[in-house]
C-alpha cells in the first residue's frame, strides 16, 4: 500500500485518490487551435520530479503533489490554492497571456 498525504485529510491510502495528470500552463483564451490542442493533448511525460493533480475522492478535494516518476516516491503535497490564485473567466473577453503563472485548469 502506498500512502499519499492529503493536506486536508492527512495520510491516506493512494487508492483513495484519482491521478489527474501533470499541472499544465493554461494558454491565453485567444490562443490558436494548435496551441489549444497542445494544451489538451500533449504531455511532458517527465522521467523525474513532476508536479501533478490528485483528487481525493471521498472528500472531493483536488490537491497538488510533487512526485518522482522514476523512484516512485511522493515528495510533497499541498492545496491547489497555493498554485492557483485566480479563476479563468471563460465569459470575459480574451484575457492577456498569463506569462508563467499557472492558472486554474478546468
Amino acid at each position: 500500500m502506498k500512502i499519499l498525504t492529503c493536506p486536508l485529510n492527512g495520510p491516506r491510502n493512494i487508492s483513495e485518490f484519482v491521478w489527474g495528470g501533470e499541472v499544465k500552463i493554461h494558454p491565453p483564451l485567444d490562443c490558436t487551435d494548435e496551441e489549444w490542442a497542445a494544451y489538451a493533448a500533449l504531455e511532458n511525460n517527465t522521467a523525474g520530479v513532476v508536479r501533478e493533480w490528485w483528487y481525493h475522492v471521498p472528500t472531493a478535494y483536488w490537491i497538488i503533489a510533487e512526485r518522482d516518476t522514476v523512484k516512485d516516491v511522493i515528495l510533497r503535497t499541498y492545496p491547489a490554492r497555493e498554485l492557483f490564485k485566480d479563476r479563468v473567466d471563460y465569459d470575459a473577453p480574451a484575457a492577456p497571456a498569463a506569462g508563467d503563472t499557472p492558472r486554474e485548469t478546468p
Partner: protein
Amino acid sequence: MVFALLKYGLSKHYPAKHQFPRPRELKKSYDVVIIGGGGHGLATAFYLARDWGITNVAVLDKGYLAGGNTARNTAIIRSNYLTPEGVRFYDESVRLYQDLSNDFDLNILYSERGHLTLAHTDSAIRTMRWRAEVNKHFGINSELVLVDDVKRLCPQLDCSDTVRYPVLGALYHAPGSIARHDAVAWGYGAGAAMRGVEIHQRTEVIGIEREGVNGTGGKVTGVVTNRGTIKCGKVIQAVAGATTRVADMIGLKLPIRTIPLQACVSQPLKPFLDKIIVSGSLHVYISQSSRGELVMGGSTDPYALYGTRSTLDFKEGLMMHMLELFPYLAEVKLLRQWAGMTDMTPDFAPIMGETHVQNYYIDAGWGTWGFKATPVCGKRNAEMLATGQVPDLIKPFTYRRFPEFRQLGEKGAASVGH
C-alpha cells in the same frame, strides 16, 4: 527426426544453432538505424531485409534483445477493434501471424482459441453490437452472443445471476489467438540477422544528429550511442515506454504517458480453459498458456511511472473480479508477476509514420495493445522506409491527428481488451 533424436540423444554434443552472430563493433554508417530491439524493431528489420533487400541496417537496443514489453505481454492476438482504421490494420496483422511459423521455420506456438469480451451492462452490449457490425463490414469473424451462447462456448465461466455483475452476453471473435511472444521476437531477429542485419544489444541511443535545423525539424544524419556515433540515412524509433525520452532528442512532444501495466501467471494446471476471456467492465482478462499457466492481467496502473514494480493493489483488485468469473480458482497459487512500461495515447490508437524531421520515423503509442500489431508494423514500417511513402494503412495514425482534432476513439476496444 527419429534418427536425429537417436544420434544426438547418444552424443555429448547437441548441435545448438547460433541464431545471432556474436557482438561486434558498430560500423561507421548504416542505411537504416532502428532504435529499439523489441518485436516492432526486429520485425521492421526482418521485412526490410527480406522484402526490400535493404540489409545495411542496425537494430540498437539499450538492454537485451526483446526484453521490453515484447517479453512482458500476455500475447493476445485479435482484430475485433472498433474503428475502421484499427480493424483494417489489426486484420492484416492477424493474417501475417497465421503464416509466421512457416516464414521463420520456428514454431511460435500460434494457438487459435476464440476470444470472448464479456458484457455485464446494457451499454456494454450496445458497444459490442457496434463493434460486431464494424468488424463484419470488414470481413472479420465477430459477433454478439447472448448469455446462453456464452455458457455453451465457455462452460467453465460462472454465468449465474447471483454475482454482482452477471454476464449478459459477449463479443465473440473466433480467430482470437495467443502465441509465444519470445519466439516471435527471436524469429524476426534471427531472420533479419541471417540476411545481414546487425543487431546490437546494450547499445543505448542518447542523441540524434541533424542538419538544416533552421526553425524546422531538419534532416537526420546520425545517431549518438553509448558506444559512439554512427551516420545513417534513415531512422525509426520503436521504444514503447521510452518513447518520450527518445522523441525528446528531436524535440518532438507527443500525447503519450508512460504508465505501467502489470500481469501475472498462476502455477501450471492441466489444460481446462480453451477460450480467452476478457471483461472490460471488471478490468480483467485470462487465458491458459500452452504450459498450463493461467495468464492474467487487468487495466493499467492508476498513475504514470517509469518503473516496473508490482503492487499488491493490482493483485487484490484483479483477483476480486477474477473469482467472480471463476470462483473455483480461489485455491490456485500465483507463480510469477511482473510489469511493463506502456506508452499510452489518449485515443488508444498508435502513433506512426513521419515526424517533423526528414527521414526520421516513429512507431509508438502501442500502449497495452501492440504485441498483436508486431507483424503489420514491421511490414508497413519497412515499406515506408524503403519507398519513402507512408502506406495508407499507417496514415490515420499520424501524430498530426491531435492538432487537427482527428482523434481515433479506439478506447471502447483497446482499454483493457488487449
